[in-house]
């Protein structure tokens, strides 16, 4: 850790290193390997964007926009396209500044997603961040399906030093949520973090189960700030779009936690999801450490991707 110089930004850049290298490798050969802007150039560009998991459709849209820009701005050299592309992508990912107000309010954060994306770990990291911010945090362990999920979360709760409400494997998760809500009232906590079992978005019953938990929260705490965060594994391909759509139908998703950004070479699916569904990425996981969950900031994100030194 000592080797890294400047806290947040250096870390983010470090975490995004793989992304950066991959995109840059591709882009540099695109921007410098061609002497003029022609069909071959655009095809190469398409390859780089698709390889970053941005998806065929969004890639097509981006390329169309670049084509228009090239015409309107009379761009002649491929390397000049670079600046435009950076702007274009930064624009895509810009989510505005009022997305984190809930961290200062009383709020209930409901964390959902498919299996193995890192929900439990993300909750541990979120709890750590909020605790460090002097917020009173309570965790609800509503993954009562997977073996030892509660124990896993308990280990995190102990590490962070926050209380947790849990139950035996096989308990109705809605009842865990209910208990946690009562406990939140009694303890007067600021932020309640709810972990849920991983579920594939095409399982009707499991999505209904989510809706039920949602209803209970709304009933017990009407009017409180609700934050429904979908956790997505950054290495997921185009299926992430389906996931986002289905979970959005079941619960009103307010944001995305993009995990495992330190390993995958791509993070492009975030662009496609924002573009197609308008769901902003709010946090990204850039490492295994307890402090490695960061707020998503489109400018430094894109900058870290394209920053060369």
């Amino acid at each position, binding site marked *: 850790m000592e080797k890294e110089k400047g806290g947040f930004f250096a870390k983010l850049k470090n975490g995004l290193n*793989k992304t950066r290298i991959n995109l840059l490798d591709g882009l540099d050969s695109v921007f410098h390997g061609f002497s003029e802007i022609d069909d071959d150039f655009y095809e190469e560009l398409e*390859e780089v964007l*698709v*390889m*970053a*998991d941005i*998806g*065929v459709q969004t890639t097509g849209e981006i390329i169309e926009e670049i084509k228009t820009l090239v015409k309107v701005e009379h761009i002649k050299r491929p390397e000049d396209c670079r600046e435009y592309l950076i702007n274009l992508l930064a624009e895509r990912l810009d989510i505005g500044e009022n997305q984190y107000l809930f961290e200062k309010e009383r709020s209930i954060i409901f964390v959902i997603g*498919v*299996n*193995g*994306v*890192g929900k439990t770990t993300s909750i541990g990291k979120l709890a750590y961040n909020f605790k460090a911010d002097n917020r009173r945090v309570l965790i609800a362990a509503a993954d009562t*399906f*997977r*073996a*030892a*999920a509660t*124990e*896993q979360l*308990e*280990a*995190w709760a102990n590490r962070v030093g926050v209380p947790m409400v849990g139950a035996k*494997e096989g308990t109705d998760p809605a009842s865990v949520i209910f208990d946690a809500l009562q406990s939140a009232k009694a303890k007067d906590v600021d932020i309640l973090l709810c972990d849920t079992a991983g579920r*594939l*978005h*095409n399982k009707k019953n499991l999505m209904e189960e989510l809706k039920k938990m949602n209803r209970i929260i709304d009933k017990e705490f009407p009017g409180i700030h609700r934050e429904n965060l979908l956790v997505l*594994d950054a*290495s*997921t*391909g*185009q*299926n*992430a*779009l*389906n*996931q986002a*759509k289905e979970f959005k139908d079941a619960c009103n998703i307010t944001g995305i936690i993009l995990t*495992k950004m*330190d*390993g*995958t*070479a*791509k993070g492009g*699916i975030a662009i496609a999801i924002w573009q197609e569904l308008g769901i902003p990425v709010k946090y990204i996981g850039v490492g295994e450490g307890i402090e490695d969950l960061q707020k998503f900031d489109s400018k430094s994100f894109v900058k870290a991707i394209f920053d060369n030194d």
Partner: protein
Amino acid sequence: MAFENLTDKLTKVFKNLRSKGRLTEEDVKVALKEVKLALLEADVNYKVVKNFIKSVEERAIGTEVLEGLNPGQAVVKIVNEELTKTLGDETVELKFEPGQAITVIMLCGLQGAGKTTTAAKLAGQFIKKGKKPLLVALDVYRPAAIKQLQVNGEKQGVDVFSMGDNVKPVEIAKQSIEFAKQNHHNVIIFDTAGRLHIDDALMQELVEIKKNVTVHKTILVVDAMIGQDSVNVAKDFNDRIGIDGLILSKMDGDTRGGAALSIKAVTGVPILYVGMGEKLSDLEQFYPDRMANRILGMGDVLTLIDKVMQETEEIDTDKEKDMMARLKKGKFDFNDYLESMNQMKKMGGLSSMLGLMPNMGISKDDLEGAIDEKQMKQMEAIVLSMTKKERSNPKLLNPQRKHRIAKGAGVDIAVVNRFVKQFEQTQKLMKQMPGLMGGKKKGRFGGFGGMGGPGGFKMPF
């Protein structure tokens, strides 16, 4: 589904093109452009797609277009064959060491791929094959990973060997072999921690394990939803550690699973199993042809083309003629209904058959609304709950009998009533329109049309 079916797309592309004879370069190029998009949407790696398309193009140009297929379908047929070939021509079984010798299997992969769950599922499969497996907990990093394996092991009735999370995985692996020998286990499954393929230290740990313990099969567990990065992951794991097989997890989702193709193309290792659900029994053999269809988003269309061709020859023509004659007279009874249902089942069910008939002038959506396979099953249950007499003489059905039938089929009496009413209407309809039934040369599908459940008889064939 979010994407248009590839077959539908190609049908549109070739709508006005009915070239007979051989596939021209133009035909192939147009079709392959759509195929390329379909593969990319399915998360097949871009570079793999490029190579794949090239090889298909070479093979396809000049190929004869079979009677009854349009050029698009002809190309899809070739694409499908090539896909299946790339994915592995046949199902590969995991090979054990001979006799009672211990087979050591190591599972590895990224975080959240599903290694621990898969380990327990595998153990269950091995028990069924008469083996005595031992699960070994080598994930000393993730909180409660050991506990998770222990709980799942207990559910499966399999011993779990662990030494807590303060011992190095290499040491645990070594000790587990001794334990297995003493306790007569003949298959050992190492459940290792999830790790990033670029994490040097953790990758080295796997190398060390293989250095110190004889590992017979190293299996990479991959989340079927993984995107373009699958190639890097598989390549790094293969280069550093060496993998012998692949298990795709979470295939019960709606992902097209293009990673299977990417990884196979890059590493050449066989795909052994696919995870099809959360229950510990939900691990299935891998079938390359099914996977090929899924990646292309075609359902089982091509398999069905073959099946229909086979069935056409097999079905007893006399019996059918007999049935058609009675159909025309409107003397269609419940026995005929059962018969046509059975024929349809032989061909793989209705919904998959619909994909077969893209040129019927009906969109697939219309049909999907009208027919529900669950309903078909219900209808079948109703017919099977009738006596033989009732089946051949629908007029016998009175309220009392209907009540009995409803009970037998486990449905509400209203369902039975509706079904019988529709049956009668269909009879009438058929009597009125004998031309509809006999008019077409391939009128054999006519028999199925009428009874697709509520609203089903609207189907125009």
